[in-house]
């Protein structure tokens, strides 16, 4: 990658004003690295399905190695050495967090050793989320179709559906690759996230920042944004969604946030019983599914 080479040339050519310019360049370089990472992610997904097949993490490592991105390579090495060998790419369309966590959760449900109990538990949590939507003023007309489909999808883990045998990971993948299917899950998770924030205003109101302007937003403005498709999720949304569904998520944040090893964040701090956590891989502006 010619990134560092270019910067050195510019520095030499403008030696007299070196000091202040160097600071500017540092910023520029950071945002360039960020943009470059975004472009790499977008290029890899341009024509791909919404969720891709399982790929070894070593593939991602080689992509960053080819780009001379040592920070990411070191962090990926840490993941591989700690047993996270694979990942699934998720399309970077602004819904990657919701699509990734939805898919990863259903995978956990399918893999659960006591599927019947897990499904019953999940159905009762789902019912509670519908009450939450109702209480926060979402019209039934609006959420009932999404709810019904979520319910049918959860049941499908243990009983055949419309002539199709019990849901497998391959069946789940097919379902999620159809936008009509996975967008139902994305929308339902978005509605629940927004309603959970509305119902727990005191916990969240000081942390509702606009992702681009970084300005504090009002609860209704923030929640309207959460409910729209294609709007990237932030940490507040992850916490709200996990609390509403009693999900455990562990997110590996790549990008040099941590001096040693990697920044691996557990949400919530104390895990909910009954379900293994799902793992997500975060690179600036994007989520993928991480697999152990």
């Amino acid at each position, binding site marked *: 990658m010619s990134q560092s080479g270019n910067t050195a040339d510019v520095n030499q050519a403008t030696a007299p004003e070196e000091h202040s310019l160097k600071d500017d360049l540092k910023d520029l370089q950071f945002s360039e690295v960020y943009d470059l990472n975004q472009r790499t992610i977008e290029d890899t997904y341009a024509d791909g399905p919404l969720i891709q097949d399982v790929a070894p993490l070593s593939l991602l490592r080689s992509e960053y190695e080819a780009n001379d991105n040592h920070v990411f390579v070191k962090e990926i090495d840490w993941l591989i050495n700690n047993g996270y060998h694979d990942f699934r790419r998720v399309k970077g369309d602004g819904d990657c967090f919701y699509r990734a966590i939805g898919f990863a959760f259903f995978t956990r449900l399918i893999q659960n050793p006591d599927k019947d109990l897990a499904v019953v538990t999940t159905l009762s949590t789902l019912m509670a989320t519908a009450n939450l939507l109702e209480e926060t003023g*979402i019209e039934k007309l609006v959420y009932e179709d999404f709810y019904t489909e979520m319910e049918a999808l959860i049941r499908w883990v243990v009983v055949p559906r419309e002539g199709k045998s019990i849901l497998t990971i391959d069946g789940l993948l097919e379902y999620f690759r159809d936008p009509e299917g996975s967008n139902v899950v994305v929308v339902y998770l978005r509605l629940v996230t927004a309603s959970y924030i509305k119902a727990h205003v005191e916990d969240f109101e000081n942390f509702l920042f606009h992702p681009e302007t970084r300005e504090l937003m009002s609860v209704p403005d923030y929640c309207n944004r959460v409910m729209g498709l294609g709007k990237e999720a932030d940490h507040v949304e992850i916490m709200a969604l996990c609390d509403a569904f009693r999900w455990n998520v562990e997110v590996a944040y790549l990008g040099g946030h941590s001096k040693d090893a990697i920044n691996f964040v557990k949400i919530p701090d104390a895990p909910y019983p009954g379900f293994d956590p799902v793992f997500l891989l975060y690179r600036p502006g994007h989520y993928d599914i991480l697999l152990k």
Partner: protein
Amino acid sequence: MDARLRRVNKEIADCKNDRTSNIRIELVDNSPFHLKGSFPGPEETPYEGGNFDVDIVIPPSYPFQPVKMKFITKVYHPNVSSASGAICLDILKDAWSPVLTLKSTMISLQSLLCSPEPNDPQDAEVAKHYMTSKTSFEDTARYWTEIYAGGPGSRAAKVASPGARDEVAIAGLDPQHVTRFENLGFPRNKVIDALRRLNYRGGNVSKITEDRVVEELLKP
């Protein structure tokens, strides 16, 4: 199973059953995906007394993507194209979310008529008129409501054919200004066009020289 059809049918029924909102929805060509909505102009606005029809198209990916709406009835408003009826409203674009419905979107259109956003215009000429003289803008908007939306008023009742409509009032201009430049030998419709483009209204009149107007009039 067609999720879109199920949702739209419920929404149409919801509008029919709601007697408080005054939003009406009817099918066009028997298709639930092409509709005509209408609502009364909001009270205490220049649109009061008019009835506004809206063309509604439900896209294949509804409700994930926004419904398409544009005014059928001509509306004089900074956020509505006076030529095409296209609407500039955030929820019809990137602020759409699947919790919005035909009814709530139509109510938002009604609110848009109450509170124009001239800084984010759909029709730049109308927005300039609004910024230059709100009184003159409201007179014009009221006249449009009379002649296009069946609003109250004596003038519209007397109008026998569209040709007899007051083109000067439609353009939101002062008849004296139009006559003045007509007297210089320019055709009336050209004068109206030029003065409208120049926003020759209110405090702007003193800022625009006669030469500037003549220059505009001489443009091919």
